[in-house]
């Protein structure tokens, strides 16, 4: 289909926008169930404490209170599990302390829920939660990771260590990497912190539980990126409900960025309460609760070494990382610092030796898990910062140093030293495009102009690769995943020719309702407006693993393609009968089935009608109806890559950094809707630049979260950014999925932090300051202090 027909490649305007722009979106907290009651949680105010007693008498006696739950009510149910088993270097499995619905025996982080009140109104529930008298004996908090590993004060007494695992990747490469570094002519070493972030989807988490005593069926409305996974976790691990007795619906969801992948205890609580009370029970988080209890992101402390020849040829990368997992293992928390991080530590380069060691550490802080990029931003930040530092030490241009070590286009598929096989890429082309678009050649003149205004100007360079389209089940199964990571779709052609496409991916900002129909419309040669996407409801969709890891189009979109191919194959059989021709002579083009060499044809709509009104129909060989399902399991990850640059100005008087320009050039493979893809990059850049300059999550030594509101945690505002320059015209299609797509959701957040930091260091160096590194966020205070420390 040509682009003006809303097929593949068209910047079709989003159909979902109309309901959001007119206030008709339906987010979980907007859905009112008749007779619903409200839950409010009593949460720990200390980071580590022994629950001596909880007296709920006064709360239970208050107006409107229907029930009060404590950890005692959930001792018979299971825990919320980690989805990925990591083994330590010595073969020992990771430590997996139980994560209960409500804290029992001990509270382990500020915000850890130990009781819940259900009442007729939210105000009554809140008042009663405050009336619960909990005697919690405060214990010293475990906050700092190094101290946690060295000390004997444990977050979980029963495992007698704060180390979840000590992982080596690839352990067999360790000795060779050590030897290569020892013998290398030049080694650049950098210690850095990947700052802890709070995802901060604008819609706080919310869940409404329902129970039908007549049928024994539960229903859960919840803010989820993957309702099927939530159903699986609740049914199989936490509550023991048969999967056919629980429907999970994630309606409109106001952003996720990782934080809504996971199952949280509040979801189990509202279901248990709904059953006990035979009423719908809703809980909606306040923003303060979100800060305290949503899974946080990043929080790595890393030492990275880059060994190279004097001419800059890379010999080895060696990384030692401590990764904070917080007080409990969130569902993907063990995969994020390992297989989404260590496997990317060869970057875009032909480096022969890579070794990564990651120690995951329990602390008395909120759980840490995947946040936009998930492990890959940490990998890219470490690599691209140490490369920049090496370029400076070796006096090699940072672009040239990267180009010198790039995997070249004719080397693909390329088995990288960190264990993954990259299918396609052209990193030099991306760098060329970036240099042209950003006019890097004109930088010197712009620097001069800034200096004339009393400002320091810096140019930052970065190239990244990520592994997306998560993930091939066979591979991740070997690596410890406890789930498969395929996806599913059903294409239902209705009798009148309209289509409903049920997809396992969930759209919470990504525009699936617009983009997926573009694919189907292109394949069937019909109007995209006659195709609707159905998502977010386990009762309507065959199965699905949800949206994260830039996987929706690459994995679920591929399932949509496969199901549509099956529809076309069946429709061809029906058309052959209608046209009195053999199936092999039928061709399908532009929405019409025709017999080769004749003018006989029937339209797709006529075939659909025939499928549902099967008069004169070959019932002996073809079933009525036109609906097909496909499950798609990818053969490999996809490997988006990019070259980024930015220019910053630093005010030497205040240390304030201003982003003057930002150029992101990405290879996402083929693109279905360029407008949506560009928007995804913009959003990722906003979050990545936010990490680099503004955002930080801080706990004090008592484990109190001192950045627990928008007054303390610096959310990026509109005036923190320039307009971005975004390009995705350098395309090397993915070779192993039918659309040739790679995924675009996380790139901006992965590629931008090192770009910004590299630019700031460049600016400071240009001003004669021997500053080689500043940990993010590069606040005015940190930059000014670094400049004035000498």
């Amino acid at each position, binding site marked *: 289909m040509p682009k003006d027909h809303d097929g593949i490649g068209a*910047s079709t*305007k*989003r159909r*979902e*926008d*109309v*309901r*959001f*722009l*007119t*206030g*008709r*979106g339906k*987010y979980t*907290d*907007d859905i*009112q169930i008749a007779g619903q009651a409200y839950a409010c949680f009593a949460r720990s105010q200390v980071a580590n404490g022994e629950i001596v007693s909880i007296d709920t008498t006064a709360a239970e006696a208050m107006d409107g209170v229907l029930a009060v739950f404590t950890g005692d009510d959930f001792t018979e149910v299971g825990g919320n599990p980690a989805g990925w088993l990591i083994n330590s270097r010595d073969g020992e499995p990771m430590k997996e302390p139980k994560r209960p619905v409500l804290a029992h025996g001990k509270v382990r982080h500020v915000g850890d829920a130990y009781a819940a009140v259900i009442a007729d109104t939210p*105000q009554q529930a809140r008042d009663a939660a405050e009336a619960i008298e909990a005697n919690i004996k405060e214990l010293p908090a475990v906050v700092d990771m190094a101290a946690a590993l060295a000390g004997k004060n444990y977050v979980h007494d029963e495992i007698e260590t704060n180390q979840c695992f000590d992982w080596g990747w690839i352990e067999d490469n360790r000795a060779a990497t050590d030897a290569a570094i020892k013998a290398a002519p030049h080694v650049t070493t950098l210690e850095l912190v990947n700052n802890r972030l709070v995802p*901060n*989807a*604008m*819609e*706080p988490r919310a869940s409404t539980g329902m129970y039908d005593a007549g049928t024994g069926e539960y229903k859960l409305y919840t803010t989820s990126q993957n309702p099927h996974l939530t159903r699986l976790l609740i049914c199989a691990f936490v509550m023991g409900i048969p999967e056919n007795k629980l429907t999970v619906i994630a309606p*409109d*969801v*106001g*952003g996720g960025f990782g934080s809504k992948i996971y199952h949280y205890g509040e979801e189990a609580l509202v279901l248990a309460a709904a059953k006990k009370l035979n009423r719908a029970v809703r809980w909606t988080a*306040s*923003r*303060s609760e979100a800060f305290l209890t949503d899974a946080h992101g990043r929080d790595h402390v890393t030492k990275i070494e880059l060994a190279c020849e004097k001419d800059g040829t890379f010999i080895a990368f060696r990384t030692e990382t401590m990764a904070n997992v917080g007080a409990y293992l969130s569902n993907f928390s063990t995969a994020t610092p390992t297989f989404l991080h260590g496997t990317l530590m060869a970057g875009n380069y032909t480096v022969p030796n890579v070794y990564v060691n990651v120690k995951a550490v329990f602390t008395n802080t909120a759980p840490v898990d995947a946040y936009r990029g998930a492990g890959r931003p940490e990998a890219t930040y470490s690599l691209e910062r140490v490369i920049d530092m090496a370029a400076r030490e070796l006096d090699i241009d940072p672009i040239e140093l990267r180009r010198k070590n790039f995997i070249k286009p004719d080397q693909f598929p390329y088995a990288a030293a960190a264990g993954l096989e990259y299918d396609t890429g052209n990193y030099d082309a991306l760098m060329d495009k970036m240099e042209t678009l950003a006019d890097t050649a004109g930088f010197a003149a712009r620097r001069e102009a800034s200096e004339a205004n009393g400002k320091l100007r810096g140019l930052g360079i970065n190239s990244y690769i990520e592994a997306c389209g998560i993930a091939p089940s066979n591979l991740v199964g070997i690596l410890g995943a406890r789930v498969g990571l395929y996806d599913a779709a059903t294409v239902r052609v209705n009798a009148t020719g309209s289509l409903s496409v049920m997809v396992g991916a969930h759209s*919470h*900002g*990504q*525009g699936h309702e617009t983009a997926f129909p573009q694919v189907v419309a292109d394949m069937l040669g019909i109007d995209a407006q006659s195709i609707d996407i159905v998502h977010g409801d386990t009762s309507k969709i065959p199965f699905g693993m949800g949206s994260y890891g830039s996987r929706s189009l690459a994995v679920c979109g591929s399932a949509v393609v496969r199901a549509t191919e099956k529809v076309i194959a069946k429709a061809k059989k029906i058309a052959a009968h209608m046209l009195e021709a053999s199936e092999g002579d039928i061709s399908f083009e532009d929405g019409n089935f025709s017999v080769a060499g004749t003018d006989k044809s029937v339209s797709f709509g006529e075939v659909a009608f025939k499928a549902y009104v099967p008069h004169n129909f070959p019932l002996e060989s073809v079933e009525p109806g036109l609906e097909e399902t496909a499950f798609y399991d990818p053969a490999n990850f996809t490997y988006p890559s990019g070259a980024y640059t930015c220019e910053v100005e630093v005010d030497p008087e205040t240390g304030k950094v201003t982003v003057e320009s930002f150029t992101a050039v990405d290879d996402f493979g083929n693109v279905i809707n*360029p*407008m*949506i893809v*560009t*928007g995804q990059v*913009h*959003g*990722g*850049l*906003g*979050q990545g*630049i936010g990490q680099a300059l503004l955002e930080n999550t801080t706990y004090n030594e008592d484990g109190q979260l001192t950045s627990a*509101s*928008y*007054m303390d945690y610096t*959310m*990026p*505002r*509109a*005036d923190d*950014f320039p*307009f*971005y320059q*975004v*390009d995705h015209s350098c395309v090397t299609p993915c070779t192993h999925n039918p659309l040739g797509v790679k995924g675009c959701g996380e790139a*901006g957040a992965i590629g931008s932090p090192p770009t910004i930091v590299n630019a700031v260091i460049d600016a400071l160096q240009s001003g004669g300051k021997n500053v080689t590194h500043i940990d993010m966020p590069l606040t005015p205070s940190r930059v000014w202090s670094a400049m004035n420390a000498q």
Partner: protein
Amino acid sequence: MPHVSMTVNGKAISGDVEGRTLLVDFLRGDLRLTGTHVGCDTSQCGACVVHVDGKAVKSCTMFASEAEGADVATIEGQANADGSLNVIQQAFQDHHGLQCGFCTPGMVMSAAALLKDNPKPTETDVREYLEGNICRCTGYHNIVKAIMAASGQDVAGIAAE
């Protein structure tokens, strides 16, 4: 419970509320106008922006009873009389100024207030005015572009697509 009366989107309404009921909770809970959202509890995110007597107000910062007799406008009342998107709403769709949609009602209401006072805002004007509206999805690029487009300015040169 105190009784309140006000006009909401041109319609006279009244109800009984607890004194501590915030305007946003009255709109969402009592009137079922759930397009106005709550994204924080410190009056910073701006998802709850409505117009009270023509001024942009964060409806989480005032009690319902303080809106006694006021003329309140919410996102539900912003479309044209025939139901089509108004100029600002249309510009947000045309320029992909929204993703998850949660901050969007507040953005649209703030944009309307800005353009009323400043019909041709510069990029800097728009960015500074949005200080009180947080978006986590868009990196603000397309929001700023949409608002400038809604003001009738040519935004073709700003960025591709």
